[in-house]
């Protein structure tokens, strides 16, 4: 090393000069040394594997998605598997019913959710259930944007649940931090979500995770086979089990109920009281803004979009709150009409057909399907005539 300005440090005496030989000074403590050209070889192999493994995995892990398939509850955060289902459903060429747990059917089996009854009533398999349990408009926007590219040009029935605008907490405009659903899907940088306090590193990781299929696939392995935990945590719980044997290549069934299993009974029998949520203004609502962005994004992608608004359980609302809800509903409808988005403002179902504020029970879904199929705009949208 050249050193014109600093004198050389004289060799100090050894701390203990007994053992004699100094160990040879290696390059590193565990020498694993590659030249730059060998690093290019590594980069090539890693990129090839990163590209090929997720694709090959789809060949060896069957996705058995028959009629009425919905994303299994356990895979609700597995965006790689969800994207796989979106790709599959989009390839059928039918109508994709997109939304939150109301579409997914939180309180009912997959063959008692809205898409099932639409199929049953139209005697077809054209409606695919693309509902995700727990998703909210901000996350749905992320899902459509980053994982829903295959939906391009398809017919989409988009459900709008005004529950997400029923309070600042639901609207994600509350200042207090809390664990929101699907944090990886919400905007990480270019929209301030005050209650979302992820570190910069976490946010960057979420953005990169969306764009790198290998990372999505890695997350899929953890969610589908390692109880949604990393390998280390999984082995600590099962110290003597072989992790490779956990990878059974059998995905959870869409029939699996949510955990904890919800009580599929009318809300009135569950001891739930009426409530008066502090609805946020639509003009300032973050969730409503995201919903609108989702509609616009789908339209930009040449999708035909039909919006189903509600049916919210108005029976649960106090009088004043119900009045505000009606105003919000009208404002939402007004925006949809202004932007020429065909829609159906679902009429409230009988009180006994709701399990909570927004989820119908099976009979409620049947009635909602009937409402939709009797709606002229929906008939035009779907190209069907119904007597």
């Amino acid at each position: 090393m050249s050193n014109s300005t600093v004198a050389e440090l004289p060799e100090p005496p050894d701390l203990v000069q007994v053992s004699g030989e100094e160990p040879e000074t290696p390059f590193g403590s565990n020498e694993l040394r590659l030249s730059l050209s060998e690093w290019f070889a590594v980069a090539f192999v890693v990129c090839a594997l990163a590209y090929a493994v997720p694709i090959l995995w789809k060949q060896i892990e069957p996705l058995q998605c028959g009629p009425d398939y919905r994303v299994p509850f356990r895979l609700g955060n597995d965006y790689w598997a969800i994207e796989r289902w979106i790709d599959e459903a989009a390839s059928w060429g039918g109508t994709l019913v997109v939304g939150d747990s109301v579409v997914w059917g939180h309180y009912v089996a997959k063959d008692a959710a809205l898409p099932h009854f639409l199929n049953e009533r139209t005697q077809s398999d054209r409606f695919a259930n693309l509902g995700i349990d727990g998703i909210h408009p901000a996350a749905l926007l992320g899902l459509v944007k980053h994982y829903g590219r295959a939906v391009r040009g398809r017919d989409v029935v988009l459900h709008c649940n005004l529950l997400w605008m029923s309070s600042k907490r639901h609207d994600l405009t509350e200042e207090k931090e809390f664990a929101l659903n699907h944090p990886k899907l919400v905007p990480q940088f270019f929209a301030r979500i005050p209650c979302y306090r992820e570190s910069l590193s976490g946010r960057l990781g979420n953005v990169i995770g969306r764009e790198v299929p290998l990372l999505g696939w890695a997350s899929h392995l953890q969610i589908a086979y390692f109880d949604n935990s990393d390998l280390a945590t999984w082995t600590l719980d099962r110290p003597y089990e072989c992790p490779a044997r956990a990878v059974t290549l059998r995905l959870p069934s869409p029939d699996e109920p949510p955990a904890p299993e919800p009580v599929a009974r009318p809300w009135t029998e569950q001891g739930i009281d009426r409530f008066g949520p502090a609805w946020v203004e639509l003009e300032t609502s973050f969730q409503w803004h995201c919903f609108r962005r989702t509609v616009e994004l789908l339209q930009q992608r040449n999708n035909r979009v039909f919006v189903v608004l509600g049916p919210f359980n108005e029976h649960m609302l106090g009088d004043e709150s119900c009045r505000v809800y009606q105003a919000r509903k009208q404002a939402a409808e007004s925006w949809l009409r202004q932007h020429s988005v065909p829609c159906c403002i679902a009429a409230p179902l009988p009180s006994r057909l709701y399990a909570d504020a927004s989820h119908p029970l099976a009979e409620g879904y049947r009635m909602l399907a009937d409402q939709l199929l009797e709606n002229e705009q929906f008939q035009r949208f779907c190209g069907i005539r119904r007597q």
Partner: protein
Amino acid sequence: MLFHTWTFALFFAIFYPVYLLVKGTRLKLPWLFLASYVFYGWWNPVYLLLIVWSTTVDYLAVLGMSRSRWKGPWLAMSLVNNLGLLGFFKYGPFVAENLTALLAWLGIPYEVPPPDFLLPVGISFFVFQSMSYTIDYYRGNVHCEPNFIRYATFVSLFPQLVAGPIERASNLLPQLYGTPRITREDLGDGFSLFVVGLFKKVALADYLAQYVDPIYSAPSQYSAAALLLATFAFAWQIYFDFSGYTDMARGIARVMGFRLMLNFNNPYLATGLGDFWRRWHISLSTWFRDYVYVPLGGNRTGTFATYRNLCMTMLVSGLWHGAAWTFVVWGALHALGYSLTRALETSTVYRRRVPKWAKQAGTFLFVLFTWIFFRAESMADAGIIVRRIAEFGMEDPVCPVLMLAMVAAVWLYQRLYESEARWVLRPAPVRIGLVVLMIGYLAVFGVSSGQAFIYFQF
């Protein structure tokens, strides 16, 4: 900012292209200085005041020495300032706690209020690095650095700022002159060091930590088997954690054209405690050798004085690691072990008849025992652990086989590397295959890690 986070990846992605552009210009030092302060200030910008203060005082001390016939007072100023900072920020709570205990013992019911602040990250590292410069100048080993920004960059250079290696001015300052040359070899070596370090930290150290932490948090609830395995796991955890950090630091510095000193050299293959300290945290042990052991007289003043100097150096080293009696005991045990192995190594029978593997095993077991005191949260906990291990209760330790297999694989790799069969690891396909495996493991199983490094607390 931790090396194994996306934040650092973003930081480096911004820093490095600009660095490549300016490394041959007058902007090189300001850019390095700025980047290093952003890196350090990321934890808490207030900490920057401390590093600015320490740097300024030492810079002025050396400047003062260079212009004065009396160097002593300037050196004293530097030492008092650095040791004062360390004492106040690192040992304040420890001193307060022990003063309270002493007063209580004397029958005076007064609680000395402990300082209420967080320990600044890496204070022990940058203070030692800065202090070595003033001592070296006093001894006439280095020249005065007139450029403040260059000196501040030497103290704060971000790859080695928070957990070493503790660089000497004689090694690092000259590298800050001129245009750093970055060769293909530097890039290859830099990537190699970084990936190996990342694997050690994320795949190994953080994994082992998940087994160790709950056991050491409540040692009375675990059997001897679990405590033994947790101690064994901790020995490897701290090695992977710290040497992983060092590897990453050296790798980052290397791609910037700087060569930092080797800090770890397969320490668990050491054949004695002396050998261990020549392989473990080399930059610290050589620091203590040069600035504590040698000034005390080293081994030049007779056998008794040598052992006394040795023991004092190890005790100070123990206290450097942390402000708690457990660290003092850890240092004392190392002093004892060091003295014993030194005495043994003077015997021809020991040197020639005792096989190498037995020396390695004995050294490893002794170091393992000392880690109990290093890791235990209190002396009471350390006592419980030693007692329960002595009871030899052999209930199921619930230790993941995969974790042990990974440690065994690394140990075998090290053994193989130091054996005559080392050629097995030389072919390019083997090395490329190993690196691809490591990167694959990190990509698939290492994505959720974000634990800080153990040595940041020192």
